[in-house]
């Protein structure tokens, strides 16, 4: 909106949330810059939703400071609510109201009126392909349609910052791809977006991600940088008895993790070994493998090295 807007949209330091002694979020530091999609990647229960709820003022932090769009949260949470859009994990609009009624309701709640209100409702109906569905009950629509409606209501008042809590968990892959295209359109228009996900492919689309585990941030940065700085190289093995090879390799010196992907075994080798391909070829465990080749790392590998997943 105005030029004076801070370049940092979200900053948090030492954020802790404990529920009866259990630390759901444990010492989180965050800096999110304007105009990017920032993703929280982590398994269920890793604290991403709790972290997001503290950023919007839905939960009071046990410890730590949060500042969103220059406002201190949760103190100024009510002022902040005019400036943010929020999409909940499960569909939370009214199933027994029509698309148009839901939009009208939210428009009034956010205090939109007059020509602006009319224009905005028409715009979101158009942009999110809801014009033909406007008389349909929200509860009778498909997952993808509901998700479009949820996004439409979240951006109705043109918030500069958007929080999306696992927005694509209930939709098909086609709608998911489409949804992300719409997110990039929003970013292009100047919106900043914070999103939680447990899908690797979604996380890979984010400008920056934070990998969460047990309430702590294990790594953060652009997906490409994270892959480059992973601290491990990836080698894929093809051949018979892959399960057996995996069992033998796990726990061996220099092996971070090994996981089967279809007909291939994907092995992460620590990067202090200069030639990981030769290192594996030399190992007696891989005798009989038909192919051993070094491949490009992906975000899942980053996730595995960053979290404790491969170590057990």
């Amino acid at each position, binding site marked *: 909106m105005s030029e004076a807007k801070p370049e940092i949209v979200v900053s948090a330091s030492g954020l802790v949330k404990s*529920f009866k002694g259990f630390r759901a979020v444990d010492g989180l530091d965050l800096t999110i810059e304007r105009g990017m999609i920032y993703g929280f990647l982590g398994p269920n229960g890793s604290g991403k939703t709790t972290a997001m*709820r503290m950023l*919007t*003022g*839905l*939960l*009071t932090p046990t410890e730590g400071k949060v500042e969103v769009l220059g406002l201190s949260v*949760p103190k100024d*949470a*009510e002022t902040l*609510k*005019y400036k*943010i859009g*929020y999409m*909940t994990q*499960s*569909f*939370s*609009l*009214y*199933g*027994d*109201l029509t698309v148009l*009624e839901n939009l*009208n*309701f*939210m428009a*009034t*709640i*956010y*205090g939109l*009126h007059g020509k602006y209100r009319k224009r905005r409702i028409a715009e979101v109906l158009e942009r999110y392909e809801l014009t033909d569905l406007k008389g349909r009950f929200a509860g009778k629509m498909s997952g993808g349609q509901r998700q479009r409606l949820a996004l439409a209501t979240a951006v109705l008042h043109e918030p500069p910052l958007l929080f999306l809590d696992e927005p694509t968990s209930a939709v098909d892959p086609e709608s998911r791809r489409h949804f992300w295209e719409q997110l990039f359109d929003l970013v292009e228009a100047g919106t900043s977006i914070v999103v939680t996900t447990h899908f690797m492919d979604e996380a890979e689309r984010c400008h920056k991600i934070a990998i969460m585990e047990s309430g702590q941030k294990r790594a953060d940065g652009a997906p490409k940088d994270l892959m480059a700085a992973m601290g491990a190289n990836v080698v894929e093995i093809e051949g018979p008895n892959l399960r057996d090879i995996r069992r033998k390799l796990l726990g061996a010196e220099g092996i971070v993790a090994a996981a089967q992907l279809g007909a291939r075994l994907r092995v992460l080798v620590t990067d202090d070994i200069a030639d990981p391909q030769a290192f594996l070829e030399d190992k007696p465990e891989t005798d009989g493998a038909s192919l051993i080749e070094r491949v490009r790392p992906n975000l899942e590998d980053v996730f595995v090295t960053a979290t404790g997943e491969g170590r057990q």
Partner: protein
Amino acid sequence: MRPLSRIAAIFFKELAQLRRDRMTFGMVIMIPLIQLILFGYAINTNIRDIPVAVVDHSQTAISRILIQMVEATRVVKVTERLYSIEEAQDAIKSARVRAAFILPDDLAQRIVRSPATGFETPPSTDEETSRPVAQWIVDGSDTMIAGAIKGLRNMPLAEIFRQAPNRSTPTFEVALFFNPEQRTAINIVPGLVGIILTMTMIMFTSAAIVRERERGNMEMLINTPVRPMELMIGKIIPYIFIGLVQTGIILGLGHLLFNVPFGDKILDLFAGTLLFIGASLSLGLVLSTIAQTQLQATQMTVFVLMPSILLSGFMFPYEGMPVIAQYIAEALPATHFMRMVRGFILRDAGLIDLHKDVLWMCGFFVLGMAVAALRFKKRLD
């Protein structure tokens, strides 16, 4: 303007949801309609036609006349004739009859000497004449039934001898105001307004907030700039209209079917009913901020509803209850409304006459709204 338009948005949203919930919408009309007809006709504290057995050991013309006289009171109805007292006791035990009328074989002698025949008044110390003419054995577990039959205790017997009963001068004169015909419906119908409003108002509102929580709408709603008070007010306005419609149905039909008057204090009645609706709604909102599920909300409603029916004076007189129970009853809005509505309709009382109840109700409403708005947090923790 924002608060007002937000309240309006919530109001119209509630209305749209209510309109589409056919079952609930139907119950809004059917509950007062059916219950008024049912209770208006069914509840009757003037007990009649209690089924009784007769054990006639006398088997004389005079015993048959006596039985007919007893039946003519319409208090009891002879449904069985038995031959022994044991049989009569069994009949009572198995609930075929509520009482048994035992006529001894020396009935004629007893009647002739009985003071109830009105020939003369013998000294009460006279053993022979102070004997009752016959006996009732009664299932005394139901105090209302027992009371009705006890009323027959001093039945005059002069008619047996074709004589007009002696005009007895009562010790006291009793003048019955407001309901001289002693029709139960006169008391029940206005009271029913209180019961039905307690039920529907508390039930609807206690479910109102919980429903948003259960259906997952709450997380979205608390992420918007809506204020708790706006949400509360927007949610209760539709139910105020519903409450007024229900009151109209009960009092209108009560007038048509049971001839219950509206009274002269229509405005006071309207204001008093609005106050009671407000108090019930605010109580419902408080409950809805406590309950986590709709089932819990329903249970809490019943928790309030039962004492509202039994302690408010709707069924049993408030004055008959022990002091502690009266204190509990005083805490219920229904008790105050019972006094108010019967006052407006039957006793031509106004808001001024009942100012204590009016003030109490105002206080309850304001406190309830404040507690509900304070308890409603726009936080998840």
